[in-house]
């Protein structure tokens, strides 16, 4: 199969924030790979570091945060060593990003078409205004916006949430990036529109062959979209596998807990399983495995050493000494 090297490879990425209580790691030694033309889903609760991870890839971590160590290899080139101007060229043209809030991610004072041409202009200084306009209308057409010639001059407030997210996608894809990072792209939209946007992303991926990193807390979205899944907890990846694998046989107790908290139609359960407690704040991480205070399978060993991400089945990594979990489940039961 053609090119086997992954499009994006993240190695030992650590993003820290300087605070009054010392340096806090929002992303703590993450290794990931995104294959060409595929979708990696990153799942986790709020505060697990998944958004910081995506901003780290873009090198847009807001101060006082900074990337302390690691490598972010895009097409073999380490983005973390690029000069600011080179990085600016990468943003938008090689890696693009769409955000959670389509309501506020567009500038209210400019017509949407102009915002798309602006995005193109950032990477193409020579094209004529006429040409950019045609390309922007084409970009709007690609995201299935009806009558794009007329929508071009509309202001963001004249469009619905779904339309605005389509415009955001058009803007992100304007320069045909190889990688699209979608940070909770459907969270702010209602369910029918969510489905449309996800369909659109899939169709565009098939058309352009781009890779997608999909960040979400919604396992339903992951199941629908992702080829591979990484589950994050407290700044670390705790489980990584093909999407089918994750849903069929989750190996980390945290993943198990996440799956247990989804309502299901095919099982008769009185209550949804909830994971007790909340994600620990990064300045008060427990010793040993970061999940052990909330883990139903925790044993004494878990409080001592942080488990490493290890292969529990071919292509399936989990950071849990009790994996595979089936045994632990039986032990508890």
């Amino acid at each position, binding site marked *: 199969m053609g090119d086997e090297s992954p499009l994006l490879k993240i190695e030992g990425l650590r993003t820290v924030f300087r605070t009054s209580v010392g340096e806090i790691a929002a992303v703590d030694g993450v290794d990931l790979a995104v294959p060409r033309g595929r979708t990696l889903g990153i799942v986790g609760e709020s505060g697990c570091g998944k958004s910081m991870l995506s901003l780290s890839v873009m090198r847009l971590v807001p101060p006082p945060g900074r990337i302390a160590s690691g490598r972010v290899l895009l097409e073999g080139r380490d983005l973390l060593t690029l000069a600011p101007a080179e990085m600016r060229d990468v943003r938008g043209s090689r890696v693009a990003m769409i955000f959670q809030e389509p309501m506020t*991610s567009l500038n209210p004072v*400019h017509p949407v078409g102009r915002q798309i041409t602006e*995005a193109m202009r950032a990477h193409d200084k020579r094209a004529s205004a006429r040409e950019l306009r045609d390309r922007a209308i084409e970009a709007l057409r690609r995201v299935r916006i009806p009558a794009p010639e007329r929508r071009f001059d509309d202001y963001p407030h004249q469009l619905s949430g779904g339309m605005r997210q389509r415009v955001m996608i058009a803007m992100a894809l304007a320069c045909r990036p190889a990688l699209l990072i979608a940070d909770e792209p459907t969270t702010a939209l209602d369910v029918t529109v969510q489905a449309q946007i996800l369909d659109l992303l899939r169709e565009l991926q098939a058309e352009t062959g781009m890779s997608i990193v999909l960040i979400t807390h919604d396992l339903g979205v992951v199941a629908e979209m992702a080829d591979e899944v990484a589950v994050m907890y407290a700044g670390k990846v705790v489980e990584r596998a093909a999407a089918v694998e994750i849903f069929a046989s989750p190996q980390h107790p945290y993943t198990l807990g996440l799956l247990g908290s989804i309502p299901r139609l095919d099982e008769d359960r009185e209550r949804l399983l909830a994971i007790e407690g909340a994600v620990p704040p990064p300045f008060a991480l427990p010793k040993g495995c970061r999940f052990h205070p909330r883990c139903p399978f925790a044993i004494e060993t878990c409080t001592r050493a942080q488990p490493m991400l290890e292969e529990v089945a071919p292509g399936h990594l989990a950071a849990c000494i009790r994996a595979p979990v089936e045994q632990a489940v039986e032990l508890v039961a």
Partner: protein
Amino acid sequence: MSATAAEIAVPQRPSALRLLLREPAAAASLALVMLAALAAVFAPLLAPHDPFETNLVAIMQPPGGEYLLGTDGQGRDMLSRMLFGLRITLGMGALSLVFGTAVGVAVGFAAAYYRRLDGLLMRLMDILLSFPAILFGLAIAAIFGPGITAVVIALSVATVPLMARIARSSALVVLGQDYIEAARAQGMGDARLIRRHLAPNCLSPILVFATLRFGQVILLGSALSFLGLGAQPPMAELGAMASQGRTFLFFAPHISVLPCLVIFVVVLACNVLGDALRDALDPRLRI
């Protein structure tokens, strides 16, 4: 042609100008400011007499008669002098507003955008802010000699820190918006980001403050001229005219009162207009 969903007009919020004109006081103020500006621009065409021509047989004439608004202590036509005086007064105000705003907004944006500069720049602004404008006028008149240049420099310098604060605070709000992050993620450079995204969204507070400040600057400029630091005789300037007329306040009050009245009306109109503009540009108040 059938009306499709795309063709149904989204209700437009009324434009800021329309909202402004809906307010009678605001509309009147806008008209007054524009009238004053036009009178200043076309002063040479409108003035019935040469503003510098003295007529020693007709000094301190009261309003009415051959000279519509009377004459001053040297027999010069008050109306013509006031038209030319308005030119100087508004011109000084406008120039110092433009310079002060340009520098102030640049400093404010720089402080908000490059956070490393924030502390240094804003403390510098605080230092400027601690001097009253009149004191600047005195200092600069002492250095350059009294005159219009001294007034414009003093008022520009006095406007910079105020404008910088307004620009910085609104820029900080705008920079926290998602569309700024989105623009960065598209690889937009600093200069472009500031021009296309930051500046247009900071425009309304700056515009409102500039309108209010125009009134203040005119008042300060006239005050400096009144004190003898600004326009020098025989130049016609409203503050200077009020100053020259004060010796005759008991025999010919119109020589001082009329220029003061013009200043009063223009400044008041600027204040009312500024307030109304703030209301009209506030998106929360739009219905």
